[in-house]
């Protein structure tokens, strides 16, 4: 079989790249050895958000019913149904991707791919049968997987990564989350909402270290109030597990030995490379690609998590589309410029562009517009007074250099800012845009007026 393109990996880089190439009239196959949809759809973005929705609802009922005039006599939950809904959502979307492959005439090859040489992909099926395909181009979109801690290997039981955390048959009584990035924080929120005792250990001074410091501090306060024990500036110096649970010795903010049923290690990801031909890697082991997403070997490309940070699904899809359009059309592929990042705990966190910290380090001149949820009519009506919108506007032109939102639905509000940055809109255009009342998005305009020095509502 002779393909124009074989994509290795069926995640948001792989399946999107494959479909777009097929739409360009090319003969395309996509090889996947687990489930179509990749990490994102099966073990990442989607199932976590389903769990978080359940958790938020449960928290609202268990802690805030009275506020809404509700009385609930007996509230209980069925853990297997909580997990089950999350799995059901992934299953449904996974089937959806297989349907999209058919619809777009992408050959879906189940098996593990390796690259014996440029122009060749060998696929090993589950039963061990090997088939080799010829192809003009190869796109490696094999993604990443959870990184374990040295000397503390995953055992699927007491020391786990995010993937195992998604399908725990029994709710743990206690969890130590190591690493306070988006993934660690989302699981911390989830388990805590259901009454698991949660301790978060983070080496750096702030949780969500990539976010604006003010956002991190606000979230830390909120999660602490919700019952999560958060240890920042804290190093793990010893780990052990005895089949029933884990012991983690920490140094820093606290110096003690923590015990729990489970350690959830969320300290980052490592590359998953296909076997075969040797390709140039970056210092940290990610696939090295050029401006057209081509690797060190002609005709072999890379996109998504496998080509390095930021490890985000929407970035992965974007890269794959750029790469494929560059391969088959006159389009000059673009590298990822400005992109949003979100954390779906409650309050949600969403951001784009530079943090205040980074903008200062760069020596940029800018104005900050900050507007609190507590001054928004919609936020109060929705009983969501926690959080703020903070936008950094460059001087003297008023272009957005970064935006940081913590609070209800911030992950939707960031879309407007993303478009604004893409269009190089300035504060004038944001202010001139009539925002619907009452919405949370009005705060984007309000924050802009704060930056310009004439806010109405604060």
């Amino acid at each position, binding site marked *: 079989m002779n393909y124009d393109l074989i994509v290795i990996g069926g995640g948001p880089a792989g399946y999107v790249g494959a479909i777009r190439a097929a739409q360009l009239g090319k003969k395309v196959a996509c090889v996947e050895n687990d489930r179509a949809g990749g990490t994102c759809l099966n073990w990442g973005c989607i199932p976590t958000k389903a769990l978080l929705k359940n958790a938020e609802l449960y928290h609202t009922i268990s802690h805030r019913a009275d506020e809404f005039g509700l009385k609930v006599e007996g509230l209980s939950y069925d853990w297997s149904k909580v997990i089950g809904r999350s799995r059901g959502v992934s299953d449904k979307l996974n089937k959806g991707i297989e349907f999209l492959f058919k619809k777009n005439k992408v050959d879906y090859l189940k098996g593990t791919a390796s690259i014996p040489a440029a122009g060749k992909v060998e696929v090993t099926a589950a039963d061990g049968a090997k088939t080799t395909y010829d192809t003009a181009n190869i796109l490696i979109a094999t993604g990443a997987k959870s990184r374990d801690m040295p000397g503390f290997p995953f055992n699927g039981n007491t020391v786990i990564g995010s993937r195992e955390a998604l399908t725990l048959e029994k709710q743990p009584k206690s969890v130590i989350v190591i690493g306070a990035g988006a993934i660690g924080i989302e699981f911390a929120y989830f388990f805590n909402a259901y009454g698991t005792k949660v301790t978060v250990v983070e080496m750096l001074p702030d949780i969500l270290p990539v976010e604006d410091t003010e956002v991190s501090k606000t979230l830390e306060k909120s999660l602490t109030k919700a019952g999560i024990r958060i240890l920042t500036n804290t190093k793990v110096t010893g780990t052990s597990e005895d089949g029933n649970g884990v012991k983690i010795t920490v140094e820093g903010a606290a110096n003690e030995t923590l015990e729990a049923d489970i350690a959830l290690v969320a300290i980052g990801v490592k590359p998953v490379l296909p076997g075969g031909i040797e390709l140039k890697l970056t210092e940290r082991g990610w696939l090295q690609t050029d401006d057209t997403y081509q690797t060190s070997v002609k005709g072999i490309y890379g996109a998504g998590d496998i080509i390095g940070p930021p490890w985000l699904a929407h970035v992965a899809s974007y890269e794959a589309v750029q790469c494929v359009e560059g391969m088959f059309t006159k389009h000059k592929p673009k590298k990822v410029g400005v992109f949003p990042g979100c954390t779906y705990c409650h309050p949600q966190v969403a951001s784009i562009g530079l943090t205040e910290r980074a903008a200062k380090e760069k020596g940029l001149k800018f104005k900050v517009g900050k507007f609190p949820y507590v001054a928004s009519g919609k936020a109060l009506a929705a009983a969501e007074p926690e959080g703020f919108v903070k936008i950094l506007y460059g001087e003297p032109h*008023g272009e957005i250099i970064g935006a940081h939102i913590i609070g209800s639905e911030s992950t939707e509000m960031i879309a407007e800012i993303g478009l604004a940055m893409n*269009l190089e809109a*300035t504060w*004038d*255009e944001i202010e*001139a845009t009539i925002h619907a009342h009452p919405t949370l998005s009005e705060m984007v305009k309000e924050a802009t007026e704060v930056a310009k020095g004439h806010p109405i509502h604060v």
Partner: protein
Amino acid sequence: NRRAAASNARVKASPLARKIADEKGVDLSTLEGTGPGGRIVRADVEAAPK
């Protein structure tokens, strides 16, 4: 029109205004914008002398 296109690259204009200006061969730098912050919008291009 290449000159118009070249100078158009640096003026503040809406994407739609740019598309229409390119079609009509209008030099955006000769126009005054009426959009927010002086941005050139479709109406400005359409009102431009041919």
